[in-house]
């Protein structure tokens, strides 16, 4: 049976980490499972975990008056849900729900923040990986903002 360390090492975001760093990180993780339809977190709640997705699909949405929760992204295996955990006030800024039965590794945010502070090598790797993740998300979001498929005829 695979350990949390093994599973983290298979993930695209942490694949390049030294095994010792993976071991350190793994101490903050535990397996979780969400049934389809389960609300994982809501806007404004404490971002005390983030999720390394192993299987299934989750949505990220924003509650918009008169429109309900508009879905702005879905995430699947080999992706990470949650980028609010490193930054004060450590609160979720969107809603997330499991669209399919979803398995993930839940990483305790305070645990990992503390370890990153105490071990700069770990901190650097973690923040480098999350910087790449956020850069990719920002790029994708900018493309979505362009509304490329809209009918922009004059």
């Amino acid at each position: 049976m695979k350990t949390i360390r093994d599973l983290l090492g298979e993930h695209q975001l942490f694949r390049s980490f030294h095994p010792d760093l993976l071991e350190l990180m793994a101490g903050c993780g535990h397996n979780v499972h969400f049934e389809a339809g389960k609300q994982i977190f809501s806007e404004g709640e404490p971002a005390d975990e983030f999720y390394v997705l192993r299987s299934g699909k989750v949505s990220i949405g924003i509650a918009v008056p008169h429109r309900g929760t508009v879905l702005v992204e879905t995430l699947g295996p080999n992706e990470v849900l949650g980028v609010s955990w490193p930054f004060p006030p450590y609160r979720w800024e969107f809603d997330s729900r499991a669209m399919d039965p979803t398995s993930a590794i839940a990483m305790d945010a305070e645990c990992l923040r503390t370890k990153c502070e105490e071990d700069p090598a770990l901190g650097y790797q973690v923040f480098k990986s999350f910087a790449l993740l956020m850069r990719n998300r920002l790029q994708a979001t900018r493309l979505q903002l362009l509304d490329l498929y809209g009918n922009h005829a004059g």
Partner: protein
Amino acid sequence: MVPLPYRVLTRHQELTDTVTLRIAPISKRLADPLPGQYEMLWAFGIGEVPISVSGLDDDGVLEHTIRSVGAVTKSLCSSKVGDIIGARGPFGIGWNIDRATGQDLLIVAGGLGLAPLRLAMLEALANRHRYGRLALLVGARDPESLLFVEELEQWRGRFDIDVEVTVDAAPPSWRGNVGVVTKFIARTPVDFSNTSAIVCGPEVMMRFAALTLADHGVPPGQIYLSMERNMRCAIGHCGHCQFGPEFICKDGPVFPWTRMEKMMLAKEQ
């Protein structure tokens, strides 16, 4: 070239602003188009526009999927069954998916870009044994803007194609993917080093898709885009579609990324 008269056989409203017309020759018939080619369609008394061929029957009946964006396309979209429109062509260099024989074939469509790719998809399915993995990625603005939904669902149900559909934003009831189509390139189950990719959609989407495909190991010479820029005469005479040294109308509209990359990455002055 003088347009030939074609009669509208059927009119199907695909989206609020997009229609597919099936048109049949009244007397003389145009040569059968290859996937990726286009025809100049005439709305008599108004003008003509280049429209990709999205379907073809054995008896020369053509399908064109048209979005209403100006006077000519508005008129074409308003055509009724029995109306006469003009057609000349076919023009341009098509997808030529034969060159992907023995490789994986990845088709990436954004928005209305699925229409020029449909004939290539149908040809690939008719000759499925020629290719390794066959994958289709489709991006659209929202679920209501997806083209050819019934066909997408049929293709998705097959065991020999991988189909991913994604939208830029969706209501709570949507159960599919949300996100830019380029994001899904990474998870497509193809051998990128032995893949040919054909891409059609808004130019920005094609640019990012081509860059992402190349980043993942698809040889740049095996990434093909369908360009569209102000095509008027269709024969390389008027110069409206000139893009650097290329005439989109006759040197394209399908180009390998190797011929388009520098120009598409250059800023317009």
